[in-house]
Each structure stands twice: as structure tokens, then as C-alpha cells.
């Protein structure tokens, strides 16, 4: 566990430069790409998320961890996508209108992609009507909505309503996430799923995807 533990710590500490060297070393030592992802990077990110929840880390530190993860993924992604086989389904991801935060969204995008989803990451501050248009165009299986602000999470039910009005609600599974968003909120607004973090969003997305026809 030595090198994987080092990778986990490097993500946790946001050591952007050291991480690349560590990932290369792990691959040289014969570690599988998915092991490096799951037991190194994701664990590091999860520990960072826990520290964020406890108020021990904040957005700058989270971003450094996220940047570290991204640098590592440049090396790992080709190996992981190759291994994942792809074709798991399509996902449209967006941070709702009025919210400019996209750290979580980017992480979810990366994790979805490596898990075999074809993603369209619309980025932050996306108007509801643009999300609806993207669903019409791409016909995704999953719509992932993110919000970091407690007053922008209020836009999420508007997106669900807009999908309903456009006759699209039954064709997709809508997942919501972001710091202030919890399971009870997801239930209250009628979303299909919620995940605590990017890593746990993947199995939930896969489970939801399996409920839809091919």
C-alpha cells in the first residue's frame, strides 16, 4: 500500500507537482490504473471531501486536491477508458443557473467518463432552458445537476419542472449534488438520485442507468 498511500496523501495535501511523479512510479511498479484511481486518487479526494465537510479544508485546498487529481488523470485516463469499455450511457452535467462553481461538476465528469459514460459537461451557470435543449439534443440517460450555493439549489426543482413540461422527465434519471444538497432535498424535489461525492455518484448513476431501456 506504500505508493497508493503516498498518492492518497498527495491528493489530500494538494501536491500538484508531486502527484504526476507518484502516479508514474506506481505504474512502473506494476499497479493497475484502476487500483491507483480507487485506492489512491479517490481515497485522497474522499478524505479531502470529509475534511471539507468538517470545516478543516476549504475551497482553495479542495481545488488544489482537484487539480492534483486532474493532473494524475491525464496519465491514467487513457488506460482507464480503455479498460472501462465505454458505451455505458450518456450523461449531461451542469451547474445550475446563477451558480458559478464547477469543482464538483468537473470531478463528477471525470469519474463518469472513466466509468464508461459519454458525457456532455455544460459547465457552471447553465440556464434551465439550455439544459432542456441539451437533453433534447443528446437524449442522455443521466442528467447531473450541481449547486454549491443554498440559494441556487432552489433552481434544481425548476429544472425538473422544465423537463416535465417538455415531456422529457421520464426518459432521463436526474441526479443532484453539491455541498448544500442532501438526500432529503433530492427526495423533496423529486430527483432520482443524490450522491455524497463524485466517487459515490458513479455506482448510483450506473444503478439508475440500468433502470432505463437501452
Amino acid at each position, binding site marked *: 500500500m506504500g505508493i497508493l498511500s503516498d498518492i492518497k496523501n498527495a491528493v489530500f495535501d494538494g501536491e500538484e507537482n508531486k502527484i504526476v511523479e507518484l502516479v508514474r512510479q506506481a505504474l512502473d511498479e506494476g499497479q493497475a490504473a484502476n487500483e491507483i484511481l480507487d485506492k489512491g486518487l479517490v481515497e485522497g479526494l474522499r478524505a479531502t471531501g470529509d475534511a471539507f465537510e468538517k*470545516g478543516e479544508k476549504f*475551497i*482553495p*485546498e479542495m481545488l*488544489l486536491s482537484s487539480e492534483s487529481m486532474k493532473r494524475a488523470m491525464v496519465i491514467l485516463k487513457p488506460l482507464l477508458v480503455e479498460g472501462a469499455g465505454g458505451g455505458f450511457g450518456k450523461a449531461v452535467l451542469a451547474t445550475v443557473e446563477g451558480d458559478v462553481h464547477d469543482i464538483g461538476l468537473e470531478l463528477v465528469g471525470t469519474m463518469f467518463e472513466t466509468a464508461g459514460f459519454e458525457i456532455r459537461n455544460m459547465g457552471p451557470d447553465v440556464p434551465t432552458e439550455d439544459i432542456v435543449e441539451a437533453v433534447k439534443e443528446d437524449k442522455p440517460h443521466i442528467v447531473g445537476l450541481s449547486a454549491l450555493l443554498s440559494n441556487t439549489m*432552489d433552481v434544481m426543482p425548476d429544472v425538473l419542472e422544465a423537463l416535465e413540461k417538455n415531456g422529457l422527465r421520464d426518459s432521463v434519471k436526474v441526479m443532484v449534488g453539491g455541498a448544500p444538497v442532501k438526500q432529503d432535498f433530492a427526495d423533496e424535489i423529486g430527483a432520482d438520485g443524490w450522491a455524497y461525492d463524485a466517487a459515490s455518484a458513479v455506482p448510483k448513476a450506473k444503478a439508475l442507468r440500468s433502470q432505463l431501456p437501452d
Partner: protein
Amino acid sequence: MSYYLYSNTQEVSPYERMMASLNGEKRDRVPVHFYPRWAALEHIGVTFKQTWDDPDLYVKGQILAQERFQYDCAIDYDMMGPVEEAMGAKLKYPENDVPQIAEPLIKTKEDMKNVKWKLDPRKDGNMPKVLYVIRRLKEELIKRGNGTQHVPIMTWGSCPSRTAACLTGFKEWFLIVARDPDWAVELMERALDGWLQMVVAAWEAGADCVWVNDPVSSRDCISRDHYEKLTQPYERKFIEAIRRETGMNITMHPCGNWHDRMDLVYQNQADCYFLGPMDVEMCTQKAVETNEKGLSRVKALNGNVGAATKSTTDGQTAVSYATTMKRGKPEDIEKEAKAVIDVVEAADLRCILGTNCWDVKGSSYANRDAMVYAARKYGQYQ
């Protein structure tokens, strides 16, 4: 019962009531100020973009909505980016929302050279349009007050941390805070003057008071340590400069959850704090403590009926979803309003009843009326 028709004495004008509270004094009752952009636009049935294209329409909305809802303060085009735009940033103008930065202006330190740091609010960009609105509002309020301004005008200024984040992009700003604190300081140092000049010009155009905000230094964003060492000194510098240049009463809005750093926030020396979705008892107690230690000069607290969801009840415990202004009932507003009035006034600070974030788009007339009704019912000083 109609909330709108409840007792409506005009013996004390909104101007006297609001300005007295900002000075820590009492008039007839607690004033109401909930930053009524959407109330005004929705009342006259126009979008924000329409009023941006026709500033007189914005003035009309502010005037008619105040007369309809009977709250105690009008606002100019606040929470905008005219300064950042004049500095060189490109804004996008959504149909019915405030303009936003379309693309970060500063991506590298080299880009600092391309920013127009020294501004003339009377000439540059859209800043003259904001000043025009203030002048017209003033004229119209005096006209409708038969020669006396009966409603104050509040303008707005962006704290240096927020301006810097607008110029770099929010995500990049937080990375700069983490990677290069010296650059963060340089950005705030350079960013301060533009908004200071804008606020001074707004005061000269007729603004009576000002609010400033910082949405990037809360507990949701950066550590207390980063706040204390990096951004708080520039909030204080900005506030003290506004006071020195204009003498206006200053309200600060710590946007988000600042539970672990209210003692530092109050040391920014604002007269009033527009509280976000935070625990009003804790915020009040902390204001009293810092005042007693001679570290702050808090005279009034503005807020904090639910317009944004409280993320915690006490700084730690998560609470469930609820946006009272939009999804609650008038009785919910009344209940929350009474609690705020009781807590703040019991500490002998002045309560300026309001929301805990902007006036929420799409709030019902009944809910907005309920706030004024609650101030009349529970906020009488006699």
C-alpha cells in the same frame, strides 16, 4: 386579513426610520429593507435587461414598488459589474438577471498590465448609467415627497476580494489564494480604488447609504486564517475609505455562512451588518461582545428572514431545505420576522428587518407584504 391594508402611519418617513436605525437610533418602529430588485421589476412587469436598456424604467419600478410595498429603502442598480466592465472585463447581460462576467479578464500576472485600474465613474463604461439612476431616483423621490426626500437610496460597492475574484474568475481566485497569496494581495490592492471611486460618485449623485459585500470569504469558501490574513484587511480598508470619503452609513453583507469568523467581520467597522443565512442569536451576541471590547461599532443588524436556505443552525448542524420567502406562507415570514426583531432589539441593537439574501425572484406579494406587516406588528418602539 389583508397584510397590505394593515395600519400605515406616515408620521415618520421611511427615510427618517431607516437612517435612524443605521445610526443606532429609534424612531417609530423597526424599518424594513430587503434589497427590492425583483419586487420592483415584478411589480411593473419588466425584466432586468429592459430596465438596463431603459434606466428610467428602473427608476419607475423602484418608486412604484416602494409605494406599493411600503418598505423603507430604495436601491440603485446594485450587485452589478460596471466597475469590472470599465476595467476591461466583458459582461454578459442575461434577459432577467444581473450581468455576469462572461470571461475572466486576468488569467496571468501579465494580464494585470491590460487592466484599466484608474477609472472615472462619470465617463467610463456604464458607470454613468448607474449614476444617472441614482440622480433620477433622488429627483423623483423628492418630487413625490413634496420637496422632501421620504425614502433613502442605498447604493452598493464590491469588496476588493470580490472584485479580484470577478476579474480572475472565482475558481482561479481561490487557486491564487492557495498558490500565490502575494498575488492575491496585489490584486485586492489594485482592485480597491475602482469601486471606491464608484461609491464616492454614487454618493455625490445622491445615494444616502451604501452596502458592500463579500461572497468569497465565508466559511463556505476559505479558512478563517486566509480570511484574517488576506481578505479581511481589505474589507476593512475599503469600508474605512468609504467612510472617510463620504461619511455615509455603511452596511456590510457577509454572504453565506460566517459563523466561525463574525468576530473578525464586525471589526471591519461597518455600522450595520446584513446577515446571511446564519443564526441570528449567535450573530447578535457576537456583535455585542465585539462592541463591548471596543473592537467594532455595530449599530444595527439587517435580516434575516429566509431567502437563502440556512446551511446550519448553529454553524455546525445542517438543516433541511427551506426558502421561506419563496416557498413559505405569510405566517412563516411573520414568525421568522418576529424572532429576528425580538433577538436583535433585546440586545439594544437596531433591527432592520429584511431577508437573509437578496429579495427572492418570484416571491409572492403576500410574503413581501408580510414582512412589512410584521415590522408594524412586532417592531413598534412605543
